[in-house]
């Protein structure tokens, strides 16, 4: 099992505290069902990591573990550590809402708030989390621009968020996540419900985002993983809990993976 950071030139291996997101021996359960076993991964700052693997191997469970969305499912349990900038997010002294403020999330299905306008949707995180921010107009423009939506909606910021197309709604959700200035953005199959054009726009957005923040993206689309990610982690399940097969730079995963199962999967032989 290769550690992502070992191949990363940017990671500070010698530093006592790993800047970024890291899991150590993470497990997850739903009731008695052991969904995910012993995942140790590092996500260096300002990189894009793709989580790939067949359906049901625990990728979404893992990503929800990272910002404490996992605990909303009744009967959920976990083990191990999730460290953000060296601090365990599951420490009893840590507030879950603060964790989610720093580690944002974009969901598979676009979910803009239907009772709010486009502008209000972008600013919703600031109001929801009680953040003090001046110049709301600037935030709206910056976030929508970063999400690649500004040009399309700048003349109708007062329209309902639900009036946009599916792809636009998803980019609105990305803009909404950016407005609270997260350090990490988790994306759970953000393009699975979108057309190729919108997918392309969002992929460009992801690449631009990685200049400033860390992105972790779950995807079923191998081309997408190879296009947007710097690192890839391949998950698999043999009927039991999902486990990590291999994690490395995207180029290595797609051209010369260590494990033959990884090679089979990225070449489309199963999954």
């Amino acid at each position, binding site marked *: 099992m290769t550690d992502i950071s070992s191949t990363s030139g940017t990671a500070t291996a010698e530093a006592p505290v790993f800047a970024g997101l890291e899991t150590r021996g993470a497990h997850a359960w739903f009731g008695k069902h052991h969904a995910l076993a012993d995942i140790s991964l590092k996500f260096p700052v300002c990189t894009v990591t793709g989580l790939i693997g067949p359906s049901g191997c625990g990728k979404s469970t893992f990503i929800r573990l990272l910002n404490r969305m996992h605990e909303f499912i009744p009967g959920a349990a976990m083990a191990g550590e999730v460290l953000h900038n060296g601090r365990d997010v599951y420490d009893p002294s840590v507030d879950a809402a603060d964790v989610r403020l720093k580690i944002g999330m974009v*969901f598979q299905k676009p979910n803009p708030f239907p009772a709010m306008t486009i502008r209000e949707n972008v600013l919703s995180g600031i109001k929801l989390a009680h953040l003090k921010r001046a110049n709301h107009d600037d935030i709206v423009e910056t976030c929508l621009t970063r999400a690649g939506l500004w040009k399309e909606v700048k003349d109708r910021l007062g329209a309902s968020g639900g009036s946009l197309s599916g792809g636009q709604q998803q980019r609105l959700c990305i803009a909404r996540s950016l407005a609270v200035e997260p350090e990490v953005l988790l994306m759970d199959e953000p393009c699975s419900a979108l057309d190729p054009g919108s997918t392309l726009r969002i992929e460009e957005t992801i690449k631009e985002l990685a200049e400033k923040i860390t992105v972790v993206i779950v995807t079923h689309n191998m081309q997408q993983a190879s296009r947007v990610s710097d690192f890839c982690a391949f998950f698999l399940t043999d009927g039991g809990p999902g486990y990590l097969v291999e994690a490395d730079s995207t180029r290595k995963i797609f051209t010369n993976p260590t494990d033959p199962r990884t090679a089979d999967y990225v070449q489309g032989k199963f999954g």
Partner: protein
Amino acid sequence: MTATITPTSPTPVEPQTPWSTSRTSRVRSLSILLTAAIVAAIVVLFTGVAGIDGWAVTFFGLSLVIAVARTAKIGPKERKDALMRVVITSAAVAAFVPWVSIFGAVIFRGYSGARINYFTQDMRTTVPDDFLEYGGALHAIVGSLLMVAIATVITLPLGILSGIYLTEVRGRLTFLVRFVVQSMSGVPSIVAGLFIYTTYVYSTQSFSALAGSLALAVLMLPTVARTAEEVLKLVPEDLRSAGYALGARQWRTALMVVIPTVRSGLTTAAILGVARVIGETAPLLLTSLSNTTLRFNPVDGPIASLPTYIFGYLQIGTEFAIARAWTGSLVLLVIVLFLFTLARRFGGKDKR
């Protein structure tokens, strides 16, 4: 060999509905039905069968016979279909009859007793049997609206909060709260009146609008809480997740995301609650009683309301008193209809 597509010359096309029944067959069915109605009327006139109910039974029997006769040559499936159609249509009409007759009676008798002064005067200087040009029910209308308004102000926050407790907080008491709310909706309204009578009225030694409002609130709460719960359940889990993922705490998410999403549904909950209690009579007889003077102060002694007004004047039993009661019923009916129309309009908006 290649297939070719030859463009046909454009011909004007009219929109058609080949699946609907033709006009001639509809006219034929209608005329057969009309004949059956006339035959049934003749049977009532010249035989021992009598009355409107006799006519209805005869007409129903004739319709069955006609349905069998018309499908005799086609087949047993079509015959069954035609018979079921007659039975189901008759059942629908039969359910409609009492509704229409109640509405008809209230509208006709209520309207014939209505005068403009009915809405501008009270009964402080008028005896119940005075001509309808004197006195009115302004005090009862105001009393009803006042009590229902206070009851709504008490109930709405409680109802919505308990709905939020049941759907958002899902605390340890969820089961108990839901059970209590459900059994409260089965409490006879007079029990609610007795409860307020023994607690509030007895201790203050006075009937009042506030006591009436409290009794109505007891009856209104289960309706509002249950409707609010049902409405809040419709909010997709996605939206809550989105709120949490933005770093919001639970109460902020409930307040800023969940409630605004179903604002119109919660309005419906309030209106349904009002419609539930505005016609209540029994609890008001024990709490607010009735009076003859226009009054706005909710703690200043007995106060009239439309239901107790109707009840009281029907009991007096003289011609003009009864006419006043009928007009009161019409006013009450119009208010309830108005509220339900509002509820439908607001409720419809949620579905988009």
